[in-house]
């Protein structure tokens, strides 16, 4: 058969169509984890990466995470879409100052002062001490004798889709999911959502999306958004002295269960 321009036309049209149909640009997203890989937050980060890559399979996106110690971390890391840090307040502060337009996730520290620093690129996934105190205060309004604490997560949490997250974390990581693991997981999944929704890997675009537009599904039955303090709004779990999950906050009957700002300090104090 003679191959002519005419006979190639349908083929080129088909190729053009295929090209348009898969017009998603291949993206590589690099994240940096600063902290010890012995921490459960690191397992959360790995789980988040695993899931972001399952998602990325359909959208031609690949997520890599490089772990480094605070000492090994350079002054700035321009190739990182976001930084995830398991460190203390001063380490977080210096990390965020070094790269002002990149999101730096705090995944382990609960200091209230750190939130009230209102650093624009510092995003706090764990609940602050003030949030946990509010949750306990709401609970003890109902039951003054209760000896409870508030947490971000619980391995026996099944409501909403918590059952599914606990199940797959245990299956892949081989241990139960705790608060820090949830925070590490959430940080990576939030970056992935920002990448998908903005179709960008530009760190400042991702930071802007997360601060103003994200309605993240942390598998706690309510969309998560960020306060202007950088704190992630979230539902908390009430755990009794035996470690048993006994309730949720905001506490029904005491506060509106969807009013996440009834926990802690909702905005930057003047």
């Amino acid at each position, binding site marked *: 058969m003679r191959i002519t321009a005419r006979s190639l036309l349908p083929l080129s049209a088909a190729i053009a169509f295929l090209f348009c*149909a898969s017009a998603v640009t291949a993206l590589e997203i690099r994240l940096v984890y600063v902290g010890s890989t012995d921490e459960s937050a690191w397992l959360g980060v790995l789980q988040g990466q695993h899931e972001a890559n*399952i*998602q990325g399979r*359909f959208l031609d996106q690949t997520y890599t995470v490089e772990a480094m110690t605070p000492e090994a971390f350079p002054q700035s890391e321009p190739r990182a879409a976001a930084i995830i840090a398991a460190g203390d307040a001063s380490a977080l502060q210096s990390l965020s100052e070094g790269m002002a337009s990149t999101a730096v996730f705090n995944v382990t520290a609960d200091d209230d002062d750190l939130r009230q620093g209102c650093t624009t690129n510092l995003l706090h996934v764990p609940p602050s001490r003030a949030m946990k105190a509010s949750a306990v205060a709401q609970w003890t309004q109902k039951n003054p004798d209760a000896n409870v604490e508030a947490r971000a997560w619980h391995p026996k949490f099944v409501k909403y889709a918590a059952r599914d997250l606990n*199940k797959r974390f245990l299956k892949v990581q081989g241990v139960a999911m705790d608060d820090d693991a949830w925070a590490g997981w959430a940080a990576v999944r939030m970056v992935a*959502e920002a990448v998908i929704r903005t179709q960008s890997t530009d760190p400042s675009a991702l930071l802007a999306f997360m601060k103003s537009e994200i309605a993240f599904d942390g598998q706690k039955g309510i969309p998560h958004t960020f306060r202007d303090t950088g704190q992630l709004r979230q539902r908390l779990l009430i755990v009794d002295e035996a470690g048993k999950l006994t309730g949720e906050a905001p506490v029904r009957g005491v506060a509106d269960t969807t009013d996440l700002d009834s926990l802690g300090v909702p905005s930057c104090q003047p």
Partner: protein
Amino acid sequence: MRPIAFAMLVFLTLAVGTVAAEPTYRVFVTNERADSVSVIDSRTNEVEATIDVGDRPRGIGFSPDRAYVYVALGEENAIGVIDARTLDVVKKVSAGSDPEAFAVHPNGNIYLSNEDANLATALNPVSGEILAEIPVGIEPEGVGVSPDGSRVMVTSESTFMVHVITVPEHEVVANVLVGARPREVTFSADGKWAYVTSEISGQVSKLDVAANAVVRQVKLDIPKAKPKGVVVSPDQKTLYVSTGSGNMIAALNADTLELLGTVKVGKRVWGIALSRDGSRLYTCNGVDDTVSVVDTASLTVAATIQVGTAPWGVVIDD
């Protein structure tokens, strides 16, 4: 036998064999935490039977001839098959890991989501053969089959996508991003549109099926609404959406997605089903253990029926 009489007999036999059987007028409801199916007579709104079906029944649907009711049994990794007339559980068919929701193809095959395996499975419920396992996103849930059978859509809740799968190739040809935690997908009767509910973002999305694209998306303006169930009226003009902890059914204009009205039903309303003529909507109120019967013309509750613990899904044969 005279030839004419024989011809009549053949005709009658054929007629009985091919024309759809008289409906049972039964409403079937899965009770997730009672491991049962409640059977309601839609003419009296009385529960006429409760069937012990198996562990964690959720998704429910009919065979194309409505002779059988299929029930996804998540903890048994199976589809339970109930005879719609005798109400016997006639068999259980292996369905892969943790089947949650499904849709029945016009050819009789079942397309289901395996929630903990990131798969959609195509299953022949008659032979028990698994025809395909199609990788999809995390926590797949809602499944819809286009009226012409050429497309299957599966939502993945934790990757907030609608995966578009072609039949018979079983290839994922598009992944459409929607709001967080998409739970159900359904097609309009003409197959041009698909509607998706997103529980965490509170949105309803309208997809252009030919373009594999979202053409309209609204956030329901109802307090605490977490959209879950979605059905289209027979005239394609109205969309009914259950709102979970919003405890209401929302009626939307199927074209513009404008909110037309609401009706308060019971707590944590999930699965919904319309009568064939569209005049009645049945709703599963998971926390109240009831089914509400909504008169769609007036958007009022006509009856409330006690069923088993945690009603999840509902279908009607009328």
